[in-house]
């Protein structure tokens, strides 16, 4: 029980510290802003550890964070192999192909307002559909290896990206387009120098949504058949064997991969769309 009381004590102390930090002048500075969520995250971990140890929760229900960390250290090669299979071979190529195909489609229909008016409502609708359901079909078509995972990701990423890019290409203002017209800019110049840059905030918005979808797609597709490695395979088999520490280790890797992927896109966005109001501080 001491572990539990210690954890609760830590929680209360961290809470008080956070309240003080948020109220003090420190919260305006960069490190102060980062510190508060970090303390919160640490508190959750400590409480989790304390609960599991203090109440003697069985490891088949919920393993303690320290146990999971130990598992990660031991199983690093397996985790890396799963990561390479699911993320590097499944999610990322699928993401790039899907986003690229959406981009080319958007450019292709750019000159036809008729097609755009037809495609946008359908694209919006399809983007809201549970496309993950296509996973079993695509696994049947492309086999068990990473190609089918990439295919699922392509389909999942395509429509949200298409909708965002088409909307983005219409985002430039009348005045700006008129200015380009007075300069006698060609279609290509118009596209490259005005409309594509203006579309960038929309495109990055789409890329962020797509980054989460890509991971979901790659992992779900593995539930329908995969080689004997991969994160989705690992999760479903280890759950069956009640090896929950390994499941949580894989989840940790997935969480880290997802956050890094999202963070990278945010960084590139900051670099590309530095002019946008949302990026100014």
């Amino acid at each position, binding site marked *: 029980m001491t572990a539990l009381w210690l954890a609760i004590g830590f929680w209360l102390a961290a809470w008080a510290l956070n309240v003080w930090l948020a109220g003090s002048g420190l919260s305006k500075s960069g490190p102060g802003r980062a510190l508060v969520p970090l303390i919160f995250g640490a508190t959750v971990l400590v409480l989790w550890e304390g609960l599991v140890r203090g109440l003697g929760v069985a490891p088949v229900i919920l393993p303690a964070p320290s146990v999971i960390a130990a598992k990660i250290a031991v199983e690093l090669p397996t985790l890396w192999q799963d990561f390479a299979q699911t993320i590097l071979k499944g999610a990322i190529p699928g993401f790039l192909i899907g986003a690229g195909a959406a981009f080319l489609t958007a450019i292709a229909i750019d000159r036809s307002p008729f097609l755009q008016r037809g495609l946008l409502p359908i694209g919006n609708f399809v983007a809201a559909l549970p496309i993950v359901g296509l996973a079993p079909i695509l696994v049947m078509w492309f086999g068990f290896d990473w190609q089918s995972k990439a295919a699922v990701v392509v389909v999942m990423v395509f429509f949200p990206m298409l909708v965002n890019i088409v909307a983005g290409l219409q985002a430039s203002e009348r005045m700006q387009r008129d200015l380009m017209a007075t300069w006698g800019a060609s279609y290509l110049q118009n596209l490259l120098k005005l409309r594509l840059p203006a579309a960038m905030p929309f495109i990055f918005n789409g890329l962020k949504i797509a980054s989460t979808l890509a991971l979901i797609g790659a992992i779900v597709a593995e539930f329908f058949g995969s080689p004997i490695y991969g994160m989705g395979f690992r999760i479903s088999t280890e759950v069956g064997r009640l090896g929950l520490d390994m499941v949580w280790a894989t989840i940790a890797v997935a969480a880290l991969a997802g*956050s890094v992927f999202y963070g990278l896109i945010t960084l590139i966005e900051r670099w590309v769309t530095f002019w946008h109001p949302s990026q100014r501080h």
Partner: protein
Amino acid sequence: MSRALPVLTVLAGIIAIWYAAAVWMNATWVFDQAERAGTTVTWGEVIPQTMNQDRPLLPPPHQVGAELWKGLFGQAVTSKRSLVYHAYVTFKGTMMGFGLGIITGVLLAMAIVRFRVMDMSVMPWAIISQTIPIVALAPMIITLSSQLGLEGRDVPKAIIAAYLSFFPILVSMVKGLRSPDQMQLDLLRTYGASETATFLKLRLPASMPYFFASLKVAVAASLVGTIVGELPTGAIEGLGARMLIGSQFGEPLIMWAALFAAAILAGLLILVVGLVERLARKRMGAPA
């Protein structure tokens, strides 16, 4: 109405591509059969044969339509073969998750707007939570809840659906509750309004447009979550389970029919949420 023609044109295009793809993908099987029988077939003979296979690689639209019709109207809605029944199971899960997501999202947003420390400590984690692929957690949540003695799959499904649907609501509600400007807040202060009164009479009404805008996203996310919750490890009811069964028994028609039933369900849900939004806006006196 100016949108109907372009939409129909694109739809017709999609169906045409679909038929072409069906011929192309299913033709392999026809050629294989012919080769085994020692005969040759011309394309004129191949095309009709690609339209009616029992286990086509890609079923053409009319086959999917027929299977969907059979599933929806061909039997009593209580039958285990009826897609209406499975859609209802999925719908139930979606609604539970949606409700849970609304409650979580709104309560968190209220706390975040009220307490600066909540804003600083919880908001970053809420964003990170969405970069974690929930499907990784899905089988986990299902075993966990069964070990805790929860019967059935309703609770885990609802948790997964809520995990996906709370986030859009949270983000919009935070924006909405903060949308009253300083003038309006100052006015209420001159009235000597309490914090509760400010919340109920200014912040909450001001946040409603944001709330309803997020509901459409949230209900679609909730449906995706429910279907994902039905996919892994042995569910027997629900549209997700139908897809899984179709995949395991090599019955592509079942998969496609379930997929389109899910699409119809998604469309209906978004439509209903849109109607509720319009009603609520009218009640609140918003310009139409």
